[in-house]
Each structure stands twice: as C-alpha cells, then as structure tokens.
C-alpha cells in the first residue's frame, strides 16, 4: 500500500503550502504559499527537507492524522498547541509531545493536534514530503481558485495524503532551539503606493493608531478595525497590481493587509506596504490581536531584510538533537567526534 497520512479530523483550515508560486501574477495567479514561511522552513529543517518543501499549514485548530506507512517523521513549528500521540485511532490515552521538534511515528499511530495558542498558524512537515504533483512549480493551495495543494482545497476527514517515503530515516529526532516566533506588536511599513490618496495628517495618524485583527481575516487578507481612515481623493482607483503586505483602504476606512492568497490586482488605494522582513511575523498574528504599524524608509527596509535573511540562513544551526538541553552532552560530542553522526543528522540539514 502506498504510504500516506490519513486525515481523521481535518482541523479548522488545514492546507498544503510551500513557499508559493511566484512568476504567474501577470496571468492573475496569486503567489499563495505559507502565511509564515519562517516556521515552514524550520519545520522542514527539523525533518531534513528542503526549505521549500510543502507542509501542512494548520490554522487555529489542528487536524488528527493517522500514519499509514511503516513509520513517518513529523515536525511541528509555529503556534503552541497540545499535541498528543495515540497508539491507534481507538486509544483513549496517548503521550504528549512538544512543538518545535520532530517525532517519529509508527504504523497506525495517530497525532492529534489541538487548538493553537499564541499564533494563528502551525506547520506540520513530514520527512521526505508529500507525494503531490506541483501546479505551476508549487504545491501551495490557492483556495479561492481551487488550485494546487491537495485537490485545490483544505483537508477533509477521510483524505489520504500520499507520502514520498514509506518509512522514516534512522536519524535521531531533533528540536529547534532559540528561533524567535513571538508576535511583535509593531510592523514596519513603507508609505505608498497610493499615499497621494490620503492627506499627510491621515498617513501620520495611521502610523499612530492601533488596530485589532478582526474575524473575517483569512489567507487572503487581514481585516483590521480601529481608527477609520479618510480618503482625500475617493476610494476607487483604476485597478492596479498588489504587492505582498499591501495595506488597502476600502470605502469603510478600515484597512486590510493583503497576505499570501491576495488577489493579483485590486481597485482600492493602498496607504502603505508592510516590509518583506515583517511579513512572516504578520502571517502568524491571530484574530483578536492588536497591531500597529511603524513607518520606515526603503533603505531601512533593505537593512532589515538582510538581517532577516541571515536569520533564515541560520535556521539549520538551530536544529539540535532532542533531549540535550541545548548543549551537546560530552557523550554526544564524543559520538559526534567519532562518527559525525550528530552533525550529519541535525546541524547540516
């Protein structure tokens, strides 16, 4: 039988996402991809996958997954969640595992991921990845267009997600150390492109105000409620293209930050654009959170982007063997010196 993860319960909105499908926006095809690509990369690193491999993006309430393979190694990175591993689907008690680590599950074992806290998304990667045909170079799910991912939709109970590997490798499980996934309260943004649709005073007050992330926010856009923004020149523009992190202001005066599944074009003026370094953190902000925006220059944004990319590059260095308290124990160092095993297994991913 082909190895798979069987979906016993789908969670609230669980989709397959990778780093997205750029390059087709001129044809109306959104980029999509993980809301929080930092957590996705870390989840992949924990199981030895390439950074751009597809993984499950879990939103708010997690799925329950059964292993239909000899065994499979899963990792969990993102928001906090209670994760329980049961010996089978009928079992009443299981063992708890923490997030930010990998765990090897055997045939028939069931991982139940509970409600998320401290963030909107959690990524579940599986060693070797899902055996799914990419669409236009990506396995990301674009929900509105029914494109990519698993049948173009969120998971449903009964789905069998095919796996590339029929068993996990013999490497030890690892955990992720020191990756900062906290939610900032201020997000940096560059004014424009339509700053001329707002008075200078209005732009200043936007950067001074606090907004609450509202229900109705989704992978396409984060709906904000707070101080109503007044337009200086009406709220319709001739539709133009939308950048990641665009903050558009429709007639209601309540801003919407456009995220991974953003439409490629739109007809509302955009007061500012969240910088690329802050977008992954924005993607993990759950409904009900208060956020504010801080104006930066493009040069500042470039410097922040460089620092951000350096952090991404350092993710593999944050993968350490499980149960070593962060420092390698003398015994493990010996092992490592002798065989190179630890190094090969965890830090050179």
């Amino acid at each position: 039988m082909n190895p798979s993860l069987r979906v016993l319960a789908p969670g609230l909105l669980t989709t397959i996402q990778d780093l997205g499908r750029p390059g087709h926006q001129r044809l109306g095809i959104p980029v999509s991809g993980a809301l929080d690509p930092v957590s996705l990369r870390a989840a992949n690193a924990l199981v030895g996958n390439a950074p751009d491999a597809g993984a499950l993006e879990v939103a708010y309430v997690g799925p329950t997954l059964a292993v239909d393979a000899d065994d499979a190694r899963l990792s969990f990175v993102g928001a906090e969640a209670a994760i329980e591993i049961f010996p089978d689907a009928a079992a009443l008690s299981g063992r708890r595992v923490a997030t930010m680590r990998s765990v090897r599950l055997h045939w028939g074992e069931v991982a139940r991921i509970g409600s998320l806290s401290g963030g909107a998304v959690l990524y579940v990667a599986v060693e070797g990845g899902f055996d799914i045909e990419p669409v236009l170079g990506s396995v990301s799910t674009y929900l509105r267009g029914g494109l990519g991912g698993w049948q173009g939709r969120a998971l449903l109970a009964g789905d069998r997600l095919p796996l590339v590997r029929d068993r996990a490798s013999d490497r030890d499980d690892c955990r992720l150390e020191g990756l900062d996934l906290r939610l900032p309260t201020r997000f940096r943004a560059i004014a424009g492109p339509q700053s001329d649709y707002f008075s200078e005073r209005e732009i200043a007050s936007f950067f001074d105000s606090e907004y609450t992330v509202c229900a109705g926010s989704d992978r396409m856009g984060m709906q904000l409620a707070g101080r109503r923004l007044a337009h200086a020149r009406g709220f319709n523009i001739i539709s133009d293209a939308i950048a990641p992190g665009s903050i558009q202001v429709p007639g209601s005066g309540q801003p919407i930050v456009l995220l991974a599944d953003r439409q490629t074009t739109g007809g509302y003026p955009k007061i500012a654009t969240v910088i690329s370094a802050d977008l992954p953190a924005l993607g993990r902000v759950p409904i009900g959170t208060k956020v504010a925006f801080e104006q930066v220059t493009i040069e500042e944004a470039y410097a922040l982007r460089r620092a951000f990319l350096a952090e991404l590059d350092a993710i593999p260095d944050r993968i350490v063997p499980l149960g070593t308290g962060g420092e390698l124990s003398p015994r493990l160092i010996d092992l490592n010196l002798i065989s190179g095993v630890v190094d090969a297994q965890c830090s050179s991913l």
Partner: protein
Amino acid sequence: MPDYKVLPAGDTALVVEFGETVDRRLSTLVLALAQRLSEVRLEGIIETVPTFRSLMIHYDPLVLRAAALVARIDELMQSLQLSEERGRSWSLPACYDTDVAPDLDDVAARTGLSPAQVVERHSTVTYHVYMLGFLPGQAYMGDLPAELALARREKPRLKIPAGSLAIAATMTCIFPLETPCGWHLIGRSPVSLWQQRGGALLTPGDKVVFNPISLREYESLLAKAAEGALDITPVDASIGAAA
C-alpha cells in the same frame, strides 16, 4: 519619452504608472515596458504585472536596488518602441441566449437598445486584453461600445457560473471560475480562460472578438470542453474556435 512616475510598493516591488485613465495608449506603454524588461532580462527582476495604466515590478533588492532599477527604467523609456501589437487574435464562441444571459433584457432596457442590438454591438468589436487579474486567467477586455457602458449592478450576485460573459463600465469579461460578481451577465462562453494545468488562455495585449453561437452549439461545445476536447487556438494560427 512617455510621462510616468514610480511609486514604492514595499521593499520588493515598485509601480511604474503612466497615467490615471483606462485607455489603449497607456495600456500600450505598459505592455511595451513589460516587453522591454523581459527582453533585457535584468538580473534581480522576479516578475512584472501589467495592469490598465501601470506596471508592477517585483524585484530582489539584494540583487537590484530600487534606485538602480529606476535608473534602468529611465534608460529603457528613452527608447521605448510603441509599434506593439504583438498580441495574438482570438475568436471566442459566445452564447447570448436568454437562458444563459440573465441580464440581457435588463441591459437592453437600460441602454435603450433591443436585446438583439446589444448582442450585435457586443460581438462586432475587436477587444484588447488590457490585463489579467482578479481570478486566474481572467482577462479584462475593452473597450465596450460607449452605448453599452453601464455602472455595475447595485446588488452584486453572490455567485455566478464559470464561463459567464459579462460587462461593466468599458470592459467585458468571461469569468473563468464561479465567483461573486457585480457585473451584468449577457451570455456564456464554453471556453475556459483558465486551464487547470495549462495556465491562462489569453495574455495581455491579445485581441478578441466574440462569435455568437446558439444555445445548442453552446451546449455541444460545453460538453466537448468537459471532455477536454475543445481546442481553442488563435485565429492567425488556424481557424479559431474548433467546432
């Protein structure tokens, strides 16, 4: 050299805007710049997105800074060739039967034309594909004859079927997927502008005319499309809609 301004769109994209109207002249400039950029293959450009009167350029700032990109754009503008019209020509079958055109009578009433005149006006224009957007493959085609230009419906529909042929303002569209929509529905096309794995049928700069077909022809072409056997090719390459 054309008038234009450059607007920042975060730290990985910028907008080159040629004006504030929807017209063929501005669209030609947008598409000409997109064409030039694809020819010069500037390292650091990730993709460009043409819209009615502006071009968004997505770039990697660690390879190409905005200042350097803007300087390069300025150079390209000096020698921008507007001969354009590289687009392909298409004849797309369209059924205007009231069974699939819920707003045809209403459009006729609003414009003071008969339904037959609406169809005649709509299907004798050669449309220019300004841009793709909103949904995968969805082409905004213009310009409609002035007498067909109507504001959107006061009450958008929550759902219209895929293939709906619709008009609003100076544009006409075939909606590639089921979607909410405030446009006036004047027909249906069996042609899907979005092919699940093949991408988009039309591309900005293409030219399109609509070829009126009967409800029976529509249904037969739709059945063919469902089998994946409706092969639509540009008219300059063969004969257009395979029937």
